[in-house]
């Protein structure tokens, strides 16, 4: 396969050259964001690759003995340790002097919560690993429980009536480790996603991608609207596309016509209660939070960096 750079990505070219390294026939739900994220990451990445997975939807649905959807070497060990397993794989490859790219796919539960210590250790030790968090804002595999990524106001089975607390800002936690490259994107913005994957794999050290991954089952949204939800999340500034390289913040997309947050929320059953009269105040709270974060991001870009918090 030809050497790829981190230049602009043309879908037609990628589609012709690339191999689909995640086969069809896996058991993920219709409309799930995770396999779309995986396909795009694998299309953009150069082989040889080793993929490390954390326990979760993607893992249980793609490697169900005696079947596997993975056409690249793949390992899953447990829930809270994908970054540590990746550290060991990368160390072994270094010992054997093998040029292999190690890519982790883990959900938000495995990343924000149970595996945060392992992720922190991997970043701090500077392993050359690309860690991709596919973020569907909750423990979906176990039946839609809240995670550290669940946004304020979202109804889950463990936050009936809506979560009280704001979400954790994982990008800031990652950036506080001084990683060479971290970026946020969505699978609907495939050119952006694939360019970021290539950039992430070029840096010498750990890199991190925070990727939005709609979950129709958990969000109570229509499966065919998943990519639309990605676009709305970006156009409402709920999920900005940005990257931070060596501490320099770059916002990759500013909506020309910003959509109101309610356009994004209204398509999801988990936010339905926010549109009742008694949900009014909480909707405003969430809007204020999204606005504050967006302003902060823009000011960091203007300020010429301060990649950390």
């Amino acid at each position: 396969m030809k050497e790829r750079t981190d230049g602009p990505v043309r879908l037609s070219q990628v589609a012709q050259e690339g191999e689909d390294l995640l086969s069809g026939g896996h058991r993920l739900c219709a409309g799930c964001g995770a396999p779309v994220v995986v396909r795009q990451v694998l299309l953009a990445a150069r082989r040889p690759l080793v993929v490390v997975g954390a326990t979760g939807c993607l893992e249980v649905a793609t490697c169900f003995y005696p079947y596997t959807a993975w056409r690249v070497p793949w390992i899953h060990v447990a829930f809270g340790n994908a970054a540590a397993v990746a550290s060991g794989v990368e160390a072994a490859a270094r010992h054997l002097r093998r040029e292999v790219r190690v890519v982790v796919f883990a959900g938000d539960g495995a990343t924000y919560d149970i595996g945060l210590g392992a992720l922190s250790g991997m970043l701090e030790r500077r392993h050359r690993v690309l860690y991709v968090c596919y973020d569907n804002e909750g423990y979906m595999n176990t039946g839609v429980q809240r995670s550290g990524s669940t946004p304020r106001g979202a109804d889950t089975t463990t936050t009936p009536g809506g979560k009280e607390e704001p979400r954790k800002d994982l990008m800031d936690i990652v950036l506080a480790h001084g990683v060479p490259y971290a970026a946020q994107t969505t699978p609907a913005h495939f050119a952006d996603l694939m360019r970021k994957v290539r950039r992430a794999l070029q840096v010498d050290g750990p890199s991190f991608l925070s990727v939005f991954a709609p979950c129709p089952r958990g969000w109570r949204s229509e499966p065919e609207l998943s990519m639309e939800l990605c676009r709305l999340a970006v156009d409402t500034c709920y999920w900005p596309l940005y990257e931070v390289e060596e501490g320099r913040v770059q916002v990759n997309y500013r909506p020309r016509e910003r959509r109101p947050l309610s356009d994004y929320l209204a398509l999801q059953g988990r936010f339905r209660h926010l549109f009742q009269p008694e949900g009014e105040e909480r909707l405003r709270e969430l809007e204020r939070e999204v606005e504050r974060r967006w302003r902060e991001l823009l000011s960091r870009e203007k300020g010429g960096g301060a990649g950390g918090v």
Partner: protein
Amino acid sequence: MTVAGTRERGPAVREALAPPVAVTGNEAVAVAVRQARPGVIAAYPITPQTDIVQYLAHFCREGMLKAVFLPVESEHSALSAVIGAAAAGVRAVSATSSQGLLHMAELLPIASGMRLPVLLAVVNRALSAPLNIHCDHSDSLFVRDAGWLQLYCASVQEVYDTVLLSLRWAEDPRVRLPVMVCQDGFFLSHCAENLEVLPDEEVSSFLGDYRPEVSLLDSEHPASFGAMDLQDWYLEHRQEVSSAMRRAFGVYLEAAEEFFRLTGRYWPPVETYALDDARFGVVVMGTAAGTVRAAIERMRKRGLLVGLLRVRLYRPFPRELLAGFLEPLEGVAVLDRADTLSGFGGPLFLEVAASLYGARRHPRLGGFVYGLGGRELRPEEVERAVEEVRRGEVFSGRYLGLRGAARRYPGPGGR
């Protein structure tokens, strides 16, 4: 040849090739691991394992060992990294104690279920609470059913030899199970004894290179490790682990025989002392065997014929071998440095009792718990235990060496 920093780093780092040299149990592990040439070492510090980690970090730094040393952020990550490295196709090693081993517990059955023959050097230490850094076997016996091979050592030479022997055993294609080499915290880990070290090249030819059946780094033949496996095949896969554990006993005998040919030292699954003509036996694991020997000599002077059986191999448990030795006896005192807290005695006692169930003759059994949290075992206590078994006074769960009821501070009326 001198190595920078050797003076303050102790005898193991000085060219440990002119036999014998005095080293501690921890140093013996480090020396053996260096010779085994692992590709990845991942560990997290915990007393009393710490100097194993320090020595290995030093060996890697000085180029005496060409391995990647990962000073990870927890024991959970240490074993996770070791599993990842072994799946990628290198020999991989960690070391831990006590709470650290329990922090690894989630990964233990995963390592055995994935059939990755990694080495874990366990320096036995009590479990909290109360917090205690000293020796007992509660940590490794707590995880005795994780599908790991387990050996318990009683001398520094045995620690060194067992690390090498056990790697060959664990990596044998008929076994492919992870292994814990256990040594008594402080009693062995921090006490120096003479050690004969093999030349590096002899260790290399004894162990050979690590040859994984499948490797994650083989991109030409991409394999998936760690599948989901429900009602249709899970049972068969777990049974394979069970079969490997059963096969492991015979393979151990072969590996021990090979090691004997190389070194002249034979390490049997169980070691006996004065058992041939004995009427009573004492079963024990680890360094307490030395105290038991002293007690046996005293008892024999009084005319009481007592023998020792020290269990080295705990997983797989050498059931038939042990029953063969114990069957002819009138009574057996089993001394456990751990308690199952089942109201039924220590783990070694339960295994011994189960091993004897199918025997032709059934010696009277007594189960005793001793030495928790590093408490010394005294020969008088061993004698008392044998005496109680002889008189048929005890079945199981008696604690040896208690000082009396634990006092409360402040005591009644105290401040």
